[in-house]
């Protein structure tokens, strides 16, 4: 979930996606048969859909959309999304509002041959696993996992030395040099995970807290806020990278690609491996309940979803975005030197192994739409206003 004024979660990538839209749209129009693919920027393989087009005869028109729930619903309902888009690829867990408003359809895995090859689904996302809420709802499947990731926090080792616990975010030693994401389903849930693991609060499930539990989390945060612990609550990719690069903060609750971006600017930050575990999440590609959609479009949509479960697409997205995608990706990159250099294949394998480690380590699955989301939102307002 994102916050105001957003150049939001993965927003950095949306800009690139926006540019890609124009070029792809132009080519797609020329060909005639086109699928409209709404995406928050992460699912764009550098504008290259030629593999899919060659195999299916369909072009892909990628359209950048925001990831905030209100932005998605606005696009889908008010913005005519159900008349336009065939697939929307966003951070998963948005099924409750999307299904309630009849915006997406249940998917049939049998239509996607590569579904069964994706062992991440059976390991982490199948029914009965905590990750199911990212792709399923009430026993039915709605999303195809496109990327998986675990979030923690980053730090500047030159300033702090090695850190291995979320306690660092609240350690008075770094008072005034800590930043949190302005988001209750990420920063709030990580804080809940820390409080639970440290025995500082009685929280049954950090992924789905009761109003009393989220209140306890916010009370804790307000105490730290009043003690001057936090420098800022960041709201965009660029802002967080900037905080690291300028060394304005030493410890920051953030996403791993921000550390890569800081490294590209010459700043060595380390993405922590916290003993409490990670905030795990996945992106899901949903089949839009398209008004007047044809059978041919639906068939092509399934083909595109299957393409996204394939090795080339997975490897490309891992390489470009730094997220784990599907189990076929590292092997595909390693066995296709004409498409991926040895260094790229090595990088894809390393990223995949790193994220896999996070999932093995466990933690808490982000919940984009907890049962008491209104309580989350109003408590977070209290934190911000305190």
């Amino acid at each position, binding site marked *: 979930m994102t916050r105001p*004024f957003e150049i939001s979660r993965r927003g950095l990538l949306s800009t690139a996606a926006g540019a890609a839209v124009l070029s792809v749209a132009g080519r797609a129009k020329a060909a005639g048969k086109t699928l409209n693919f709404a995406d928050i920027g992460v699912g764009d393989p550098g504008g290259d859909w030629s593999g899919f087009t060659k195999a299916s005869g369909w072009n892909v028109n990628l359209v950048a959309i925001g990831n905030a729930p209100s932005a998605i619903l606005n696009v889908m309902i008010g913005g005519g999304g159900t008349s336009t888009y065939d697939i929307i690829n966003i951070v998963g867990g948005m099924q409750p509002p999307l299904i309630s408003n009849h915006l997406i359809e249940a998917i049939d895995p049998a239509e996607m041959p590569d579904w069964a090859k994706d062992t991440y689904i059976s390991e982490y996302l199948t029914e009965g696993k905590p990750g199911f809420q990212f792709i399923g709802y009430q026993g039915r499947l709605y999303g195809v996992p496109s990327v998986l990731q675990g979030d923690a926090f980053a730090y500047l080792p030159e300033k702090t030395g090695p850190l291995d616990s979320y306690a660092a975010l609240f350690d008075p030693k770094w008072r005034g040099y800590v930043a949190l994401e302005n988001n209750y389903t990420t920063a709030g849930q990580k804080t809940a995970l820390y409080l639970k693991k440290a025995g500082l609060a009685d929280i049954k499930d950090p992924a789905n807290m009761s109003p009393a539990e989220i209140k306890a989390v916010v009370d804790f945060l307000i105490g730290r806020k009043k003690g001057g612990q936090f420098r800022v609550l960041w709201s965009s990719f660029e802002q967080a990278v900037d905080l690291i690069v300028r060394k304005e903060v030493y410890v920051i609750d953030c996403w791993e690609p921000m550390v890569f971006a800081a490294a590209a600017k010459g700043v060595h930050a380390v993405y922590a491996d916290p003993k409490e575990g990670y905030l795990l999440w996945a992106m899901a590609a949903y089949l839009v309940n398209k008004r007047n959609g044809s059978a041919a479009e639906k068939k092509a949509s399934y083909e595109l979803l299957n393409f996204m479960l394939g090795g080339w697409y997975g490897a490309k997205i891992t390489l470009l975005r730094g997220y784990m995608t599907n189990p076929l990706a590292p092997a595909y990159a390693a066995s296709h030197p004409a498409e991926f250099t040895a260094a790229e294949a090595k990088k894809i394998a390393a990223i995949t192994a790193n994220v896999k480690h996070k999932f093995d380590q466990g933690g808490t699955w982000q919940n984009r739409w907890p049962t008491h989301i209104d309580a989350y939102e109003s408590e977070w*307002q209290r934190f911000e206003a305190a």
Partner: protein
Amino acid sequence: MRRARAAVRYGLLGLPGVFLVVFLVCPLLLTFAISFWQRTGFTFTPALTFNSYRAFFSGVRLLVFDRSLLISLEATAISLLLAYPVAYFLAFHAVPKAVRICLSLFTVPFLINYIIRTFAWTYLLDRSGPVNRLLQWLGLVHHPVSWLLYSDFAVFIGLVSAYMPFMVFPLWLSLSGIDQRLIEASWMLGARPARTFFGVILPLSLPGIFAATIFGFVGSFGESAVPTILGGVGFQLMGNTITSAMDVLDYPLAAAMSSVVVIAMLGLLTAWFLSFDLRALLGKIMEWRR
């Protein structure tokens, strides 16, 4: 002929009128109506309930409203104190060419993306930024000053720099429209410059002051980017809390808050309309037309 001219006149007036009704009045009325709707799960049903207003006026968001009012008033006052002398100088002491250049310079910030402009302040004001380095070089401080950024101070800087340029224009219009003979009469009757200013110039420039105040206040009150980028730990104004309500799809609450803000702003505009003759503000333009 006369009828044709009238038709053209009403046609020309009608087009912007229709535009205003369709794109401003209708959305505002819809927002107001939605504020009374009932939220049921992920959807809303038309109703006449005050639940959203109750939630707003009894919750923490009212604090945000109060804070927004206070911050906006303070930022507007600061902007006014800075903009008025500039406008005064341009109206009474600058040659026309200098006026044109200065007013053009005040439009330059609008050529740069607003978000980028606001972000630029973070580079200037952070702990390792040029302002802190200068303060340390001058020996005024020995350690970087933290409160320059992510603080109330930074929000004021952001708001004033964003809206002060807007305020110079109505002030200059108002001041330059003042009949010079009134000022000369005051001098000839022996009034000192200060008395002339407080007795003649200031009262006659009130329409411009009020217009500038509205420009500054309305902008600051609905601001969301400046507090997000410069405000530190959860600094919120009304724009932020409205967006937050929309994130959990509480559109009736967001609509109720928006309605309260719009009503407050309409109150201000009505006061301006009732208190001042628009021709006093547009004196210069009216003069040119004659």
